[in-house]
């Protein structure tokens, strides 16, 4: 069995574009949530969101406007993050006439992919009898695998190039899937992660369910409140996180810089039984997912120093914390450090797991725990956990981190990461 390491990362997040800026934003507790005129115009209850700010300079750096001519926001985010990840891993960007790279795969997941293309363009044009005006790229922008296909073409990838979709567990699930591919020797490297466009049509669906935050439209920075007594719902966002997972031996042979080792991971489902449903987790499924990930990682629950939680700012937060405490068999006061990256970047839905994995790896590598914003009024039902949730950035040289993600469909995915010391 091969050991699996992380040798590169790329990030497009609501509070920063690029690794250095993201690391700084996390450390400083910089919120990426802002008022959305579009959501107000559409009369949504929630009118704040996290939208990555892609400057012309970034577009120029990552291929220029020609590259993005036939794309949508989820494709754009994924390509920018993937190209940054590729360079960060010390790889040369191949030209369009280079040979195919048969040793690298891509698993880039999403919740809904190109829904902005479908909503803004394909449906209105088709319903107006103008299907002939859709052009050549409507199909490639609406297929579920639009992001992985786009990235695979830019980098000439010849391993499996695919898109997974497991709602809000998608990003972490992609990393777990990539881990197994490398561990079992099926491929040398995998670009793993996920992307979600700034997709107002998806956000409208969540708004209709009344699971979005509606009480903080005049104060965007305070809207995402995981672990707070006044958490009122999730704040939707978009973005992309991509990680280069690589066979440790090949990474070392090419003298690649290593951020962390992926010690193990697991994905499962709760069967929508025992309190689970299409929108809620079966607690037993969550506990089993964490414990199985720890088993695969050959890690004792007491060794976990830090948890980057799913923690969305909904009623699910307290249930999640209880499940994590149960899985680790540790009382709340003796839990590892816990934080919610969503407190800064909102809920990136399909992109959340990968953007948060990038955050977890950066914290391990740089020895800090970022603040969990907006939980100064900590939820009383889990009060004993409060000292373990930093409200300002702290220095904390953690060795092992657990990243958890859960999604509609009662699906779960967890990954165990180890700081690289060698």
């Amino acid at each position, binding site marked *: 069995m091969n050991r699996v390491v992380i040798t590169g990362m790329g990030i497009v997040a609501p509070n920063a574009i690029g690794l250095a800026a993201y690391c700084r934003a996390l450390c400083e507790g910089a919120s990426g949530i802002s008022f959305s005129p579009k959501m107000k115009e559409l009369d949504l209850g929630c009118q704040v969101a996290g939208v990555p700010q892609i400057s012309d300079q970034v577009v120029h750096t990552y291929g220029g406007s*020609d590259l993005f*001519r036939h794309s949508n926001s989820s494709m754009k985010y994924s390509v920018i993050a993937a190209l940054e990840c590729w360079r960060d891993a010390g790889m040369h960007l191949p030209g369009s006439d280079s040979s195919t790279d048969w040793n690298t795969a891509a698993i880039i997941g999403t919740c809904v992919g190109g829904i902005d293309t479908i909503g803004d363009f394909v449906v209105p044009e088709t319903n107006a009898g103008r299907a002939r*005006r859709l*052009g*050549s*790229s409507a199909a490639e922008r609406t297929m579920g695998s639009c992001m992985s296909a786009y990235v695979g073409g830019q980098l000439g990838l010849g391993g499996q190039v695919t898109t997974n979709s497991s709602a809000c567990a998608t990003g972490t699930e992609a990393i777990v899937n990539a881990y197994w591919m490398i561990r079992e020797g099926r491929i040398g490297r995998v670009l793993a992660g996920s992307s979600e466009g700034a997709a107002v049509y998806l956000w409208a669906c969540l708004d209709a369910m009344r699971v979005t935050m509606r009480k903080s439209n005049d104060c965007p920075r305070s809207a995402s409140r995981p672990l707070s007594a006044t958490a009122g719902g999730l704040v939707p966002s978009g973005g992309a996180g991509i990680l280069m997972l690589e066979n440790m031996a090949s990474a070392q042979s090419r003298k690649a810089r290593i951020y962390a080792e992926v010690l193990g991971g697991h994905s499962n489902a709760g069967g929508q039984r025992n309190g689970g449903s299409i929108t809620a987790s079966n607690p037993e499924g969550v506990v089993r997912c964490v414990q199985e990930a720890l088993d695969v990682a050959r890690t004792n629950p007491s060794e976990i120093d830090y948890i980057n939680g799913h923690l969305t700012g909904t009623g699910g937060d307290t249930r999640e914390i209880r499940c994590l405490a149960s899985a680790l068999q540790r009382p709340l006061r003796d839990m590892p450090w816990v934080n919610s990256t969503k407190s800064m970047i909102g809920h990136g839905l399909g992109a959340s797991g990968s953007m948060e994995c990038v955050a977890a790896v950066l914290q391990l590598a740089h020895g800090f725990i970022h603040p969990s914003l907006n939980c100064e009024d900590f939820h009383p039902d889990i009060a004993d956990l409060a000292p373990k949730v930093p409200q300002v950035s702290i220095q904390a040289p953690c060795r092992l981190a657990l990243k958890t993600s859960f999604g509609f469909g009662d699906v779960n995915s967890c990954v165990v990461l180890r700081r690289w010391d060698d």
Partner: protein
Amino acid sequence: MSRDEIRNTFFDLLRPYVRMEDPGRMTESSLLVEDLGVNSTRFVDVVLETEDRFKIRVENEDIDRFRRVSDAIDFILERRPA
């Protein structure tokens, strides 16, 4: 609109689709796919932009006439409202 103006406008709309080292070497006799490297899948986008820029309609059966730049210019001159 003169033939020169139509040619220059057509070159402008064509430029993002051209895959040759020096797009300045485009001429009226250039073959759109073979010489200029316009991706055959993207050809339909060139046609749609031609419709928009010159306010004409290009039917599917007309697309086959667009082999060289000069074919497109002839077609536009023929169909463009006076």
